[in-house]
């Protein structure tokens, strides 16, 4: 097993988990006035898929985008400043949690309307093909987006034109509080996607290494036959749809299910794997402390940063 790879993957899942735990810890101070859709439980997908991407590849996300953003950039200063609504944030506080955006890292948009960033990712892929440029569009969406017209429209067009796009369906079986069985008449999205002419891959693992390898396979297959690839990845959303709390007490889902998934918690799993590979507790701790310090510093900077000037409200409506 590859130690270096697994250390990198652990850094990513830990950074995501720790950043979001920090949000949870500080959210009630009411300084981060932005609705957060946390990635807790989803880290293996963010880390695994993003780690398989190259510099030229583009990412398009949803409102549950912290994991993807952090896995891609590794940075937390601009990220926290944005959550705190400060001048130093990614979009000077205009975007907040739901619209993380960072063209410097080819993270080109996230949307809080289900399914709407899929056509955006389609356009990124189209531009790559048109300009004959290297790189793929990695377009993320949840299982709820499978019910939106924009998804089917985009899938159809991408397959028709054989665009360089990797569809990444992050399936937690829930759209807010509604289960997939109460929403979808079809049983297997990957079967349907394959009929459109996609290369399909599915996985239920919470091991970032498994997701990473699967993504590499999806990329390889695309390069071989030019068809878009479709990753159908299962995970479990630990927290409420939006916000920082658990919501089992409301009865729409059972805590037993959560406990089953908790046994294969992606961060825990990856840490244990490192230990099994002979990496010492001390070494792992050192790595964790470094990330903890990075996050603390970022939060500190964000808290001290100024808010944007009032004139900023009318800037950048038009170019």
């Amino acid at each position: 097993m590859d130690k270096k790879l697994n250390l990198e993957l652990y850094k990513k899942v830990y950074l995501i988990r720790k950043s979001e735990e920090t949000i949870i810890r500080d959210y009630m101070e009411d300084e981060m006035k932005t609705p957060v859709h946390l990635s807790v439980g989803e880290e293996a997908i963010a880390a695994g898929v993003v780690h398989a991407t190259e510099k030229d590849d583009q990412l398009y996300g949803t409102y549950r985008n912290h994991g993807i953003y952090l896995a891609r950039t590794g940075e937390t200063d601009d990220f926290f400043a944005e959550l705190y609504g400060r001048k130093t944030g990614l979009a000077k506080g205009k975007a907040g949690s739901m619209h993380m955006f960072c063209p410097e890292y080819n993270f080109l948009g996230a949307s809080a309307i289900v399914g709407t960033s899929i056509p955006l990712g389609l356009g990124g892929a189209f531009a790559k093909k048109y300009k004959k440029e290297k790189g793929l569009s990695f377009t993320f969406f949840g299982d709820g987006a499978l019910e939106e017209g924009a998804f089917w429209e985009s899938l159809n067009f991408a397959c028709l034109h054989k665009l360089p796009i990797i569809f990444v369906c992050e399936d937690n079986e829930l759209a807010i509080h509604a289960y997939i069985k109460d929403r979808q008449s079809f049983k297997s999205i990957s079967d349907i996607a394959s009929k459109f002419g996609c290369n399909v891959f599915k996985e239920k693992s919470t091991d970032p290494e498994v997701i990473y390898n699967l993504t590499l396979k999806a990329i390889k297959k695309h390069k071989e036959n030019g068809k878009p690839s479709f990753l159908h990845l299962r995970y479990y959303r630990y927290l409420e749809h939006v916000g920082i709390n658990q919501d089992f007490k409301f009865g729409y889902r059972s805590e037993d299910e959560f406990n089953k998934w908790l046994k294969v918690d992606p961060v825990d799993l990856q840490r244990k794997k490192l230990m099994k590979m002979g990496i010492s507790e001390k070494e792992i701790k050192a790595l964790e402390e470094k990330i903890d310090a990075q996050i603390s510093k970022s939060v500190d900077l964000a808290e001290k940063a100024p808010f944007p000037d009032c004139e900023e409200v009318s800037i950048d409506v038009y170019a």
Partner: protein
Amino acid sequence: MRKITYQEALNEAMIQEMERDKNIFVYGLDVTDHKRIFGSCKGLVEKFGKERCFITPLSEDAMTGMGLGAAINGLRPIHIHQRVDFLVLAMNQLTNMVSIHRYMSGGKVKVPLVIRAVVGRGWGQSAQHSKSMQSIFAHIPGLKVVMPTTPNDAKGLLISAIRDDNPVIFLEHRWLYFTEGEVSEDPKPIPLEEPNILCSGEDITIVATSWMNVEAVKAAEVLRNRGVTVEIIDPRTIAPLNDDAIIESVNKTGHCIVADNDWIHCGFGAELAARISEKCFNDLKSPVKRIGFAQTPCPTTRPLENEFYPNAINMIRLVEEKLNLKPTDLSGEEFYSWENRFKGPF
């Protein structure tokens, strides 16, 4: 200067711009079929190939988002709809994505996307092939809305729209496609946000959009014969709106009619009336009046359609009312209609 039609002017603007910049591409339903969007896309696919001019699935929403994704990645898409009514299927992308993307990126990206759409009218276009909707698009911050009236505007404004780094909704009236006018052969952009004074006058200001300018020009002709001079201002760009020339004109004439090619309620006329009351209050001699579509869906049959659309006669009567003039005898007056040329079906 040589004369060409509005349709030819649109076509020429696209060809010249596509020759200039290889990042421009044209897409939409029927852009490569034998009709070529009423001729405006003639020769594009032959000249530039199917990579730069291609048809799409009937997926207005995703195709709009696709244009956005392409635009933020350095391309300059022109998406075409044969009717504004079909563009409504893309409202989610327009209002939730296209219009906000630059702002939400903190100004890090540009969205040079042109959306051309045709306003239908007559020969039974009915309720789903006749919408104009400029006020709805203009209501949304981040979108520009342009309505060319003359062939010269069609070419010059389309060139500017293509070169603009913002999303531009470009609304073309079907009947204007037949109009002829002097148009420069060179690709000469007309700046957006610059109104066109179609005729100067002293007695009353008519602000008109799109086809309503044709009606206003006829009304002004009739009124001139009885000594009333009308100043007609075509704002051309509805959003963002530069109202300087309009305000200046109303301050001079003291009377204003807004003839908008759209429904009146909550429309462009209401916006202008409010601005004029704010900026010309002391110089106004009468309240601003609005002319527009009847507040109903557009009916199919001709007699009801006549009731739905306003025309030059409505304008003449309103001017007379405002200036306390007796009604002009209009018998023998020929009110031309391009409908004589538009035999349908589409």
